[in-house]
């Protein structure tokens, strides 16, 4: 957030500010990315005072990016569009092992198939105050292995949210394997909203 606030200033984008003694830029991330995760599909809503050309705005912001961060596309949302954060319903992830893969690719595929064949997958969720059992099976929309990577589509957002680390830990343990949180590189590929007829659509293409 701080990174983008500064980039927006450097780019000279006429961003809108909140009222009050310490006005802040009106920005919202669709879903803040955890530290240590890679991504190729993040979304940021920016409220601006004026915008004559969305292409120019995209270029101006792209010119201020550090290596490894690119502004891939930009578009103007209709007035009163719901903000990105409130519409996120699902996310795609790739889980890979640069080294120290816990099992072979075949075993991984087998494990994923067995895992998703279950009707329910109860896990213990801990919050600061209490613990409760949650069934994560309904949150897994798709899970498949491809080579030495796992591809996951799962619930994400305020209504239901599944962390890919949680899934991986549960799945590996169910197969009697060890879970090393630092060995797996997780990439978020895209975020999705649900259309009125229940379809998942990439936020980039979502039209309310």
């Amino acid at each position, binding site marked *: 957030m*701080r*990174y983008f*606030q*500064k*980039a*927006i*200033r*450097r780019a000279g984008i006429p961003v809108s*500010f909140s009222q009050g*003694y*310490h*006005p802040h830029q009106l920005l919202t991330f669709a879903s803040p990315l955890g*530290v*240590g995760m890679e991504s190729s599909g993040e979304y940021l809503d920016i409220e601006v005072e004026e915008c004559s050309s969305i292409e120019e705005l995209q270029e101006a912001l792209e010119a*201020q990016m*550090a*290596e*490894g961060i690119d502004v891939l596309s930009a578009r103007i949302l209709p007035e009163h569009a719901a903000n990105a954060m409130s519409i996120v319903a699902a996310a795609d992830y790739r889980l890979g092992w*640069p080294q*120290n893969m816990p099992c072979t690719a075949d075993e991984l595929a087998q494990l994923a198939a067995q895992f998703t064949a279950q009707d329910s997958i109860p896990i213990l969720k801990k919050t600061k105050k209490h613990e409760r059992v949650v069934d994560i099976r309904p949150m897994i929309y798709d899970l498949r292995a491809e080579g030495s990577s796992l591809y996951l589509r799962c619930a994400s957002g305020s209504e239901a949210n599944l962390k890919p680390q949680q899934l991986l830990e549960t799945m590996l343990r169910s197969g009697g394997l060890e879970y090393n*949180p*630092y*060995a797996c*590189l997780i990439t978020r590929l895209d975020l999705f909203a649900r259309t009125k007829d229940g379809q998942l659509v990439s936020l980039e293409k979502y039209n309310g």
Partner: protein
Amino acid sequence: MQKLALSDDILLQVEKPARYLGNEINAVHKEIHPGMIRFAMAFPDVYEIGMSYLGIQILYDLLNAREDTACERVYSPWIDLDQIMKERHIPLFALESQDPVKNFDFLGITLQYEMCYTNVLQLLDLSGIPLMAADRTEEDPLVIGGGPCAYNPEPLADFFDLFYIGEGETVYNRLLDVYQENRRSGRSREDFLLQAAQIPGIYVPRFYDVTYHEDGTIASFRPNREEVPAVIRKQVVTDLSDVIYPEKPIVPFIKVTQDRVVLEIQRGCIRGCRFCQAGMVYRPNRERSLEFLKEHAVKMLESTGQDEISLSSLSSSDYSQLPELVNFLLDYCEKKKINISLPSLRIDAFSLDVMSKVQDVRKVSLTFAPEAGTQRMRDVINKGLTQEDILGGARQAFDGGWSRVKLYFMIGLPTETDEDVTGISDLANKIAEEFYEIPKGSRPGNGRIDIVVSTSFFIPKPFTPFQWVPQADLAQLHHRQELLNRTIKESVNHKSIRYNWHDFELSHLEGIFARGDRRLSGVLVKAYEGGCLYDSWGDFLKVDVWKKAFEEAGIDPDFYTYRERPADEILPWDFIDAGVSKQFLRREYETAKAEKVTPNCRMRCSGCGCRIYESGVCYEDQNTVQ
């Protein structure tokens, strides 16, 4: 993608991995050619602290402005990474290229406070550079130190190849020219150091020998080579408006301590508080021009996208064009929705007016630093602030809407009595009374005043009038702190006053190293080997390990702290000419004992010795030598 020295699995398991990436906005990445000088500039503390320090940014730009030099940054790896690097034998790397520090020509380490000395050893150790300068070979980087603690470099003398005494802007270019010349002609490290030692402001410890009397005091401190000077004179910038200053400061990814654009408006201070080392060693007071500051403020805000700018100086209120500067910034920042932070302002009508424009008076505290509780004590330390000033300022602040006050004091000051300590409580109570005299309906805030009293322990520092005094011992400090706590608790307005205090142990250690000599290097090595690191971070201070380190090294710490040093004793830092003469400091010490104040530099020149720099306040019209 940029190369990284740390593998993904390490970056995933350490706290705040962005500390170690080095590809921040405005970082300088140079292509390295043979024959270039590679300079690693280190701050011996964690990234967030080091990145907040203006001096590194200035030197970074200065060195990178040279075509033949690539300067990169290094910070202390946090304890989590420290452990991993030691276990897996990963050498310390510079951020920009991620190359090992060991491959560099220079490792520069800035010395901002004494309690970072174990972190200095960590930098050397992790880099694979021998701790002792004497053990280094042609393959090792030259280790150079600078910054305020270089005014007494002796406790670190064994670990450094050279120090620069004074402001870095002045000597580095010449030093690097000499280095290039030396390298081109195929001469040795020792040859370079001998050449360097002849550049004004450069101190090469190995060319000086120290002998001691039986009682442990210094008998002699002399060069062992006839080419090098007996006295090292501090070098200063004479025109601060015609010198390199950052235009594109690096923008960190993570939140750092000073997360804003920093505009250094002046150097030095006209006040002459007798406890303050910065106020003495950065003399003469020199201002930057209004035009220079306006230009740099705008350039830095535009190039960083920062949303806050802070003025930096020892006493901003003394900057002669402060209203013009502040009005310019208020105007510019209002339009751009940028916050202004104005530390070290004296409380008066002007500053209150400005502060009410840049902050929410209901939420922000007003800070006073009377430093001592009684007028007598304030006179001793030459803090030219009277009770009337404080109460008057407080009253104006209450009228302006403030209802929170922070007060800073020191305990353990020279000549301090119990009365001076209880005076702190009295002063806090008088401020509260001033508040409660306002009729109930017209009081600001919720009708109550919130006063926070903080005390730190006075530590005598080199090149101050108190460089000879004994530091108050732990028993005394404990007694005074308890006394103050009790007095505040029993006072009339105790419900409105909170009291915060500092840790003894840290101040005690700081005092030892501040006025220490070369013999302390053994203690530092033992403490580091015993696991001491990040000592200034409260939680990590290992008092027992330090105690053991002193015992094993056969050093009596009390020798450095609890002794009144005689006037004729050779002090470890006497070979440095910091501008202020020893005679002046002694005169000031005597004036302090007589409880008399000395006027500030703008009122009258007190002949401290800094006129030799031919700049700044010494040459303003009103000043004539006494």
